[in-house]
């Protein structure tokens, strides 16, 4: 299955008119990196973990620096905090736009890829490429380079940009905000499958801002905890069919992280301009239809452009590029909002700042159980479709979550096993 980040396979077993089994099998790189981090300096974690994912390195850097700073009793405020929010906006714009235009939109318009879509809609695809590039430009200016930014460190940055260096982004972002609005209006015209479910949405919540780097871990079913309590409420389980651990809320079940959860729990703190745009696009303040995730991602791109403009307009270079962080023995935890949802890091440090233990829970493993449950509910609705179209609908359903299976060696293989006498297994 193409157009899903990374390596994995999806197995759907159909018995008569019922789905008997759904297994999403993914390979999860964080396990390798957790072992790799042991014995390293706490200062190395941001750069090492940024290598886990080519699409969301900033998320890994941000969760790492926040966790290290918590372990060391340091809080980063003011313009350094704003710059972190700015670089994260760049990653949201880049990652979401890639998914909207290159991976998900072809599903809704009946194309097998963005390449064939580009032949019919070159101007739209060009708009997507330019919008994505605006995100890359932010990451380049603040992070030092667009892929695997090298300027982020525990305590702040190695070097902070001048106002003059940020100012060229203003014109680009003004264009990007308009392009993001047009993107939202464009995806609002797509034919969206009529499907909703009462998910447990889990996202950060912050009293004054749409959550990116900070907030309590909350849900619409009563979860409300600090990142340091994440493992008290969330349990990871080994499942036989996947290398990745499945996460669930203890004493409940699967949960849903990512744009739909963020949006549904934080609609009220979006800027009024963005709220209006979302409502005009046909969204309500809560969205329970995962196929509408393409709209919600577009809303978040619009918000990220708007927020980046606000941050740059208010920017005054801080006196120091980073605050001093002195290592101490302890445990640090952090959750930040990667484009695909909450990314949890926990580190145990020895007194010289050597990492004794590391734990990383990426958003895709948190959504894995929900993806499987979605497919078990969605597939029966489309069993009368020809095999090829059924597979296409399964792929579209998985892409609702923009799963980052990261660092691939193969496409995701999709197998729909019809347990009937006249039909065998289909695999592609």
């Amino acid at each position, binding site marked *: 299955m*193409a*157009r*899903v*980040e*990374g390596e994995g396979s999806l197995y759907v077993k159909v018995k008569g008119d019922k789905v008997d089994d759904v297994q999403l099998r993914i390979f999860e*790189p964080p396990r*390798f*990196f957790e072992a*790799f981090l042991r014995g390293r300096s706490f200062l190395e974690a941001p750069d090492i973990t940024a*290598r886990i994912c*080519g*699409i969301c390195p900033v998320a890994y850097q941000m969760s790492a620096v926040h966790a290290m700073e918590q372990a060391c009793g340091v809080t980063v405020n003011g313009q350094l905090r704003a710059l972190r929010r700015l670089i994260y906006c760049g990653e949201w714009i880049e990652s979401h736009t*890639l998914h909207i235009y*290159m*991976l998900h939109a072809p599903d809704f318009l009946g194309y097998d*890829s*963005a*390449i*064939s879509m*580009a*032949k019919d809609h*070159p101007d739209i*695809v*060009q708009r997507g*490429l330019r919008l*994505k*590039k605006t995100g*890359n430009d932010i990451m380049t200016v603040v992070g030092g380079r*667009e*892929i*695997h930014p090298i300027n982020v460190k525990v305590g702040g940055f190695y070097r902070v940009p001048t106002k003059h260096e940020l100012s060229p982004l203003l014109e680009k972002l003004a264009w990007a905000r308009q392009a993001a609005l047009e993107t939202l209006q464009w995806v609002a015209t797509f034919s969206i499958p009529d499907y909703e479910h009462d998910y447990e949405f889990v996202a950060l919540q912050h009293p004054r801002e749409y959550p990116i780097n900070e907030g309590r871990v909350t849900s619409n079913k009563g979860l409300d905890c600090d990142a340091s309590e994440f493992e008290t409420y969330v349990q990871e389980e080994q499942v036989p069919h996947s290398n990745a651990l499945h996460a669930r809320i203890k004493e409940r079940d699967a949960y849903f992280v990512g744009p739909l959860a963020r949006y549904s729990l934080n609609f009220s703190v979006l800027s009024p301009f963005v709220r209006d745009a979302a409502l005009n696009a046909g969204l309500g303040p809560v969205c329970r239809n995962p196929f509408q995730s393409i709209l919600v991602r577009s809303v978040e791109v619009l918000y990220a452009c708007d927020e980046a403009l606000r941050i740059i307009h208010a920017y005054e270079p801080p006196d120091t590029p980073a605050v001093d962080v002195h290592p101490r023995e302890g445990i640090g935890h952090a959750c930040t909002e990667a484009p695909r949802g909450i990314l949890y890091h926990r580190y145990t440090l020895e007194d010289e700042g050597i990492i004794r233990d590391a734990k990383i829970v990426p958003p895709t493993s948190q959504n894995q159980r929900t993806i499987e449950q979605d497919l078990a509910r969605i597939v029966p609705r489309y069993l009368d479709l020809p095999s090829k179209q059924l597979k296409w609908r399964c792929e579209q359903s998985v892409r609702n979550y923009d799963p980052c299976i*990261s*660092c*691939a*060696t*193969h*496409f995701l293989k999709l197998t729909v096993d019809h347990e009937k006498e006249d039909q065998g297994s289909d695999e592609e």
Partner: protein
Amino acid sequence: MKNKSSNLVIGTGNDHRGDDAVGLLVARRLRTRPNLNAVVREHNGDGTTLMEAWAGAKKVIIVDAAHSGAAPGTIYRFEVANDEVPTTLFSHCTHTFGVAEGIELARALKQLPPQLVLYGIEGARFDLGASLSNEVYNAAYTLLTHHLPQDTRGH
């Protein structure tokens, strides 16, 4: 960065993924060659940024790892103006919108450079933390000593 020379060699890949790093290795080795008649760039394999990476260059040569099931070290060569690039050959890429997709997207948008050659080197292993296999290392050497000097000559 401007592409001042008319020849541009782009090596793509991921340093942490075994043979996926071969494009980057070729770029780094090529850069140390004396009298090199090309600009050399390293690239992470994000197909959506290729058009920007090759902007202004007349002849572009891209080196990437391939994953087709052929013998490790097998070298593929595509003259992109004539050959459609099979996306499945390069599906190991960390970005699913990888080099092959980026090239075909550029073709659809009529933004291919005047001349584009794509080299694929069949990899043996793409595991996290793995080193380059001997077969791929040897193929990189062949590319550096035999193919690339011919491709960058005379421009």
